[in-house]
């Protein structure tokens, strides 16, 4: 069984779906979204208690040592439920970067706390002018005493406001667009000389634009080998893409369900909208887009341990697909709800917004399509 779920995975899915049902009614969602933090610490603690933050962390570091499939199950259910807690930044992208290039001491420092819910992370990659090209880094970390001096800007860093520590990609060498010379650092939230401007995201989460002005870092804050972060970064990015794809599939699935329910209930011209073929065919197209996305999202998770070329190719295909499909399903769900679809009244607008946000994370549809197009060979 490649694409099917094991019994344990099915049980995990039931458990996460129950969490969402019990804690994430639409009214509760609004309450969490309106809070300053944009999420609920109580939910976060519950996730930690349930072991979900520890799912893909090895047992040696206090984790459950399960696979990326379990993480995908959780992300898909979170997508269905519009879950707001900063799970992805901490337990997916952040954890994968630590696991890929952290020293033993750093893993021991970060991961057990992370697994227990006592450490939130945000990962600062994107910079103005670079769009989605993650190797185009102008943030500089120059040697200074027994450490580094960090200077530069990062934009749209998801979950930075709540993060205890930031993981920052900066250049210790090489030209601004070179793969070589990239290094990963960690920075505590209260480090001096960091200016943070916080924003609500389109999907009611929180992000920050950051300015680093001669921020002093110790040697111990370098994660991994200086100048050699590119390969491990791409591996962590592909893991994080797989997780986002699963979340998007959850959101799309929920959008289709809600649209079907609405069309069965809403009557015009004396009958339910569900009887009009034009609308039925639109739903059929939405179902197909969702199932195509589900196939590629799972394929992406299945190939995360492949060599980098194949792993990244499938991740690019999956991310491109869910961007296209997310846009189609989201827009058409709103359309098929008619007038009420363009209000703030229903979850569907927020699922559309979540899919928009996912498209801006780690490269949009066009970016990944171009990556594949640029490497077409006979």
């Amino acid at each position: 069984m490649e694409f099917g779920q094991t019994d344990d995975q099915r049980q995990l899915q039931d458990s996460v779906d129950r969490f969402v049902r019990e804690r994430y009614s639409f009214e509760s969602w609004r309450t969490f979204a309106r809070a300053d933090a944009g999420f609920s610490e109580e939910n976060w603690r519950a996730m930690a208690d349930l072991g979900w933050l520890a799912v893909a962390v090895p047992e040696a570091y206090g984790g459950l040592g399960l696979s990326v499939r379990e993480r995908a199950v959780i992300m898909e259910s979170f997508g269905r439920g519009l879950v707001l807690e900063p799970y992805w930044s901490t337990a997916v992208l952040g954890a994968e970067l630590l696991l890929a290039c952290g020293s033993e001491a750093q893993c021991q420092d970060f991961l057990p706390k992370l697994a227990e819910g006592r450490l939130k992370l945000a990962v600062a990659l994107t910079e103005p002018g670079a769009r989605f090209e993650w190797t185009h880094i102008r943030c500089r970390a120059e040697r200074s005493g027994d450490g580094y001096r960090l200077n530069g800007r990062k934009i749209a860093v998801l979950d930075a406001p709540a993060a205890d520590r930031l993981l920052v990609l900066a250049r210790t060498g090489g030209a601004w667009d070179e793969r070589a010379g990239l290094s990963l650092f960690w920075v505590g939230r209260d480090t001096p000389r960091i200016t943070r401007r916080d924003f609500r995201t389109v999907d009611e989460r929180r992000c920050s634009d950051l300015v680093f002005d001669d921020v002093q870092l110790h040697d111990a804050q370098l994660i991994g080998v200086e100048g050699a972060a590119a390969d491990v970064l791409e591996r962590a990015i592909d893991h994080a893409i797989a997780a986002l794809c699963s979340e998007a599939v959850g959101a799309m699935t929920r959008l289709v369900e809600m649209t079907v329910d609405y069309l069965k209930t809403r009557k015009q011209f004396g009958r339910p909208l569900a009887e009009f073929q034009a609308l039925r065919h639109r739903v059929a197209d939405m179902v197909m887009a969702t199932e195509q996305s589900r196939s590629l999202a799972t394929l992406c998770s299945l190939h995360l341990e492949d060599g980098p070329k194949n792993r990244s190719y499938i991740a690019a295909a999956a991310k491109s697909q869910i961007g296209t499909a997310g846009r189609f399903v989201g827009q058409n769900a709103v359309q098929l709800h008619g007038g009420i679809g363009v209000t703030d009244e229903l979850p569907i607008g927020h699922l559309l917004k979540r899919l928009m946000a996912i498209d801006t994370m780690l490269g949009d549809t066009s970016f990944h399509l171009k990556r594949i197009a640029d490497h077409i060979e006979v």
Partner: protein
Amino acid sequence: MSIDLNAFRQEVRAFIRQALPAELRARVERGYGLLSKDDFTFWQKKLYERGWGAPAWPVEYGGAGWTAPQRQIFEDECGRHCCPRTQPQGVKMIGPILYTFGTEAQKKRFLEPILSADEWWCQGYSEPGAGSDLASLTTRAVLDGDHYRINGQKIWTTLAHWADWMFCLVRSDSNGRRQDGITFLLVDMHTPGITVRPIYTLDLEHHTNEVFFNDVAVPVSNRIGEEGKGWTYAKALLVHERTGIAELGRARERLERLKRVAFDPSINGDHLRRDDVFRAQIAQIEIDVLGAEATTVRLLEGGGHPALSSMLKLGGSEISQRLSRLLVDALGPHALRFDLELAQQGPAADDPLPSHAIGRVPEYLAWRSLTVAGGTSEIQRNIIAKMAFGD
């Protein structure tokens, strides 16, 4: 026992290399079905000798006993390496009906000659008045002693002009529900009263036909199952039919060919290599093929969305059509020529196009039928929607 799928793929590939003559492969590459009956028979016999005549059939009837991934790999390799496409009427359509619903006598009589290509079949379903609405068919069967008398007409009967037998849906009762008055018959195409008339399609080729029945006698022993239950048996077959049409191995072959043609300097110079829009179209099809392949594995594993076979039929047919159009686009001005004869005979020594770039315009035209045959794309959407709405 876990099966080494890579080793299996190599085994299939080695078989193809050894069994498929280069000349036949070249003709398949240029055509898209422009093969003779002898060509298809030759290939089916090669498969039959290997024990691969109908891999998906139960082992007791001649199947290969493969897992779902193995079946997919086999189809994939055959498509990628330009093997003659197994004509579906026998192996994929009536075969499963026979071993599922047929009597022991019928299985004994008909299954083996399908495997060995000693007998050819055609499908007598559609009528001029009954296409998507197949249940409205009116070809009449009247019981007369131990025979039925058939009067009426079938259309879009592909390869009726080669067929020894037809599996045929006829109306045995006009009272009650339309679906309940349909009977499934096996008709000997040599029976007096049958007339086959060719229909030429957009590619100017003769693949399909009209078939007229004038007091055609069919023994009751050639009925599958019970009178009036034909619709049930036919519906079972339609799901099988849908799973076959995705043809993703063939799509992979066309995708690789598209890149070869597009980036061939003698055809396109450097233009398409540097054309971001064209490259993006190729990339998008690559993504869609990858997704469809993954969806196929999900379908074969079972337990996925109930409408996956319809999604694959719809998605796969559209992918093939887009590929066929891009291959035409990749020819530039060469595409003005309707090179059907070259596809049949092969390029001359001084032809500006290599063999694999020929026959692309006729293929594009022939493949407009992919979204119509086997259940139109609109019908597939109806089926997917029906599952989604649960009605």
